């Protein structure tokens, strides 16, 4: 037996020598150790759309403008901007003295190269669809960029605040490899990305803003959120991103861990496919809308952590919920509507759900299933892996779908894809009418904020009355931190940009 043990020990030693060297951790007292469950899926800010990638790349790359905690557009690489009165040109005045992580200067040439890259179909940038109105870009001087538009396009400013419109250096676009290196202007510089393990960042000493106040960030992947919580409790990590409200709510006040929550702009929704029978009948969709108590879905699926929402989720465009169709559950009315459609006997409604995406998806579907049973609708829940779900969703191959869809700062950018006749995802939305199309067109060109609010209030009232989708609720974006971490501002977009303001004060 002892010989056996000796052989095993030798094996272990050999194994150890062959194992790859650990990453050069920038371990120090002033390095923020953070953890999250999902990892970056790629480094190219123009083609990455996964939230997990945004969380890393928004520390490295910056767009021309960004949004603050109240979702107002604020300066980033552009110091100021103005639309012409007819909203046909947008002029950006760039920040001076900004350098990229490789030391090169940031100027108008980089902005032009970046937008040309986004608009180039070979790049495969999904956000290209938001910038199609750009006809040409002029650069009167090194720090002024003029976007000439083919039609009035107010929402383009909001679209520019996306990380997908981040500015890369023109040299990198010409000769670099954006899929495998990251050279931006942001507060942190990428040292190393080991997929599914750890990403190390160091502070950018030449960043134009105030900060960063930490020397670097070590971003670890801990795939199980319960284990992230355990790591926080054990004091192994300083900061964490959490997705699952059931895990986040386990953090109580006496645990010594600080839970931050910001109301999210992403929304939970039950999508009905109005192109399919019997959902093509207005009464049926309205009956479903009247039969669902949205608060109950929120309470059962997410322990009430969130708020019931209409179609638009940004504070600036919210309307009072009582103005929206059937936001109070009304079973009698639901039954009358079913009867009007000749469907008192009910029908079977298949519903696709992605497992664990969001973590509450199945619970939401089950709550809806129980509620719709009361008007004789039998919901058949089909649970599937995320990519399979997305595949069917994109093909509009479903009767109904429980979804968590991303919100945008601007209502037009948020919904043009669904509720305009030529929207890329209008078939997925499954419904369109002239009123929606026209309201969206007006919202795109209107520059006066009050008039714009009225247009989108009308849009929401009409949309909920037509009930192609049943908007349910928005929840929170959660982060958690040790009490000695200060200065972080939680964002409705879940952005980590404000890690640039974080201090560690043990």
């Amino acid at each position, binding site marked *: 037996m002892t010989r056996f043990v000796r052989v*095993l020990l030798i094996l272990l030693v050999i194994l150890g020598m062959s194992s790859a060297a650990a990453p050069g951790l920038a371990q120090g007292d002033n390095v923020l150790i953070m953890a999250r469950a999902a990892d970056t899926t790629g480094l190219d800010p123009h083609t990455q759309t996964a939230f997990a990638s945004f969380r890393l790349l928004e520390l490295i790359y910056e767009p021309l403008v960004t949004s603050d905690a109240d979702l107002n557009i604020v300066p980033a690489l552009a110091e100021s901007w103005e639309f012409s009165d007819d909203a046909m040109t947008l002029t950006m005045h760039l920040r001076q003295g900004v350098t990229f992580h490789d030391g090169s200067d940031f100027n108008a040439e980089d902005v032009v190269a970046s937008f040309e890259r986004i608009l180039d179909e070979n790049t495969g940038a999904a956000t290209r669809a938001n910038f199609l109105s750009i006809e040409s870009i002029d650069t009167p001087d090194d720090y002024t960029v003029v976007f000439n538009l083919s039609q009035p396009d107010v929402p383009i400013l909001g679209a520019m605040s996306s990380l997908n419109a981040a500015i890369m250096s023109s040299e990198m676009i010409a000769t670099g490899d954006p899929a495998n290196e990251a050279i931006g202007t942001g507060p942190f510089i990428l040292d190393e990305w080991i997929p*599914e393990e750890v990403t190390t960042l160091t502070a950018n000493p030449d960043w134009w803003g105030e900060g960063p106040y930490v020397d670097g960030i070590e971003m670890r992947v801990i795939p199980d959120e319960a284990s992230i919580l355990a790591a926080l409790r054990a004091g192994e990590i300083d900061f964490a991103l959490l997705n699952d409200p059931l895990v986040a709510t386990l953090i109580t006040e006496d645990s010594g861990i600080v839970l931050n929550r910001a109301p999210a702009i992403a929304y939970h929704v039950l999508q009905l496919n109005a192109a399919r029978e019997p959902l093509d009948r207005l009464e049926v969709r309205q009956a479903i809308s009247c039969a669902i108590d949205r608060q109950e879905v929120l309470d059962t699926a997410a322990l009430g952590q969130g708020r019931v929402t209409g179609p638009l989720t940004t504070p600036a465009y919210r309307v009072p919920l009582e103005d929206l169709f059937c936001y109070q559950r009304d079973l009698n009315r639901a039954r009358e509507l079913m009867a009007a459609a000749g469907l008192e006997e009910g029908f079977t409604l298949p519903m696709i759900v992605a497992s664990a995406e969001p973590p509450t998806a199945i619970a939401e579907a089950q709550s809806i299933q129980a509620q719709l049973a009361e008007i004789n609708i039998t919901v058949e829940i089909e649970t599937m892996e995320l*990519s399979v779900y997305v595949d069917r969703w994109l093909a509009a191959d479903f009767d109904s779908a429980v979804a968590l869809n991303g919100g945008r700062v601007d209502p037009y950018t948020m919904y043009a894809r669904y509720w305009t006749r030529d929207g890329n995802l209008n078939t997925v939305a499954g419904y369109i009418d002239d009123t929606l199309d026209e309201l969206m067109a007006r919202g795109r060109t209107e520059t006066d904020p009050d008039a714009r609010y009225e247009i989108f209030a009308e849009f929401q009232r009409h949309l909920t009355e037509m009930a192609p989708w049943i908007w349910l609720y928005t929840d929170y974006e959660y982060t958690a931190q040790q009490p000695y971490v200060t200065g972080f501002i939680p964002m409705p977009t879940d952005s980590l940009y404000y890690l640039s303001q974080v201090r560690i004060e043990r």
Partner: protein
Amino acid sequence: MFRYLAQRLIAFLPTLLGISILVFLAIRLVPGDAIVAMLGTEAGMLTQTQRDALEAYFGLDKPPLEQYVSWLGNVVQGNLGFSVRHGAPVLDVILRRFPVTVELAILAMIIALAIGLPVGVLSAVRHNSVIDLAGRLFALIGLAMPNFLLGTLIIYVLSVYFSVLPNAGNYVGIADDPLRNLGQVLFPAMTLGFSFSASVMRTTRSAMLEVMGEDYIRTARSKGLREWRVVVRHALRNALIPVVTIAGVEMGYLLGGTVIVEEIFSLPGIGRLALNAILQRDYALVQGVTLFIALNFVLINLIVDVLYTLIDPRVSYVRKG
């Protein structure tokens, strides 16, 4: 003997080929391609030209048969392809992760045998005694307790009551810091080893019970040998064959990665690598990892066969006469 090994290895080639075809087809027949996996719902915002550009980037623009043949051609030359998602050759990605899995598997196996063998032997020797009952109860718990429960319990106890968590997403290789590494791998290995020790215990017990009734045991006893010598030298050695068999199978599984335990304890092993490769539709990586795991199984099987000859001299693969 070597002739036998060579024959066995050659016989495995069609198996590996079959597996590679099966995996190649399966991953492509599942709905949702690499583009959907990367872009999610935003994939719907692409124009056809954009889609084509991304397909070319992921190497999906060629017909499947051509993809397979060129992949196979590369594999024969030792090149498992390139993982677009990791930005590195598939073999490098696998070899970076494999030591974690090997270490975990070996440690789990040691724990399982260290618990399972003695308890099994004791249970058989003291058949129907209190010790036997306790041993069987232990086996029942071990078999019934799923890994995710035991693993979560361990993490809960460590972090809440002791405020420690050896691995908080900062795995270090055994060469860099052997002590810390051992601390990180020990608890997941215990999780895996505990449930497997139960099967080892049960197999050992029943094999021992059978052997203890044999004539040669009575002979050994009547020769006046001490009881422990009878048990260890005569009975246990003959009872080991089924134990080695299940240990071999288990080792194959362990080397294929243990997704749940790796997830809970955040170990960057082969299991998580394979899972994420599938979720991200990283075709080259899925094919590479599967082939690698299959090869492991094959090799473990061979090792088990060789072990038989060491344990039981009657088993021989050398052609007689």
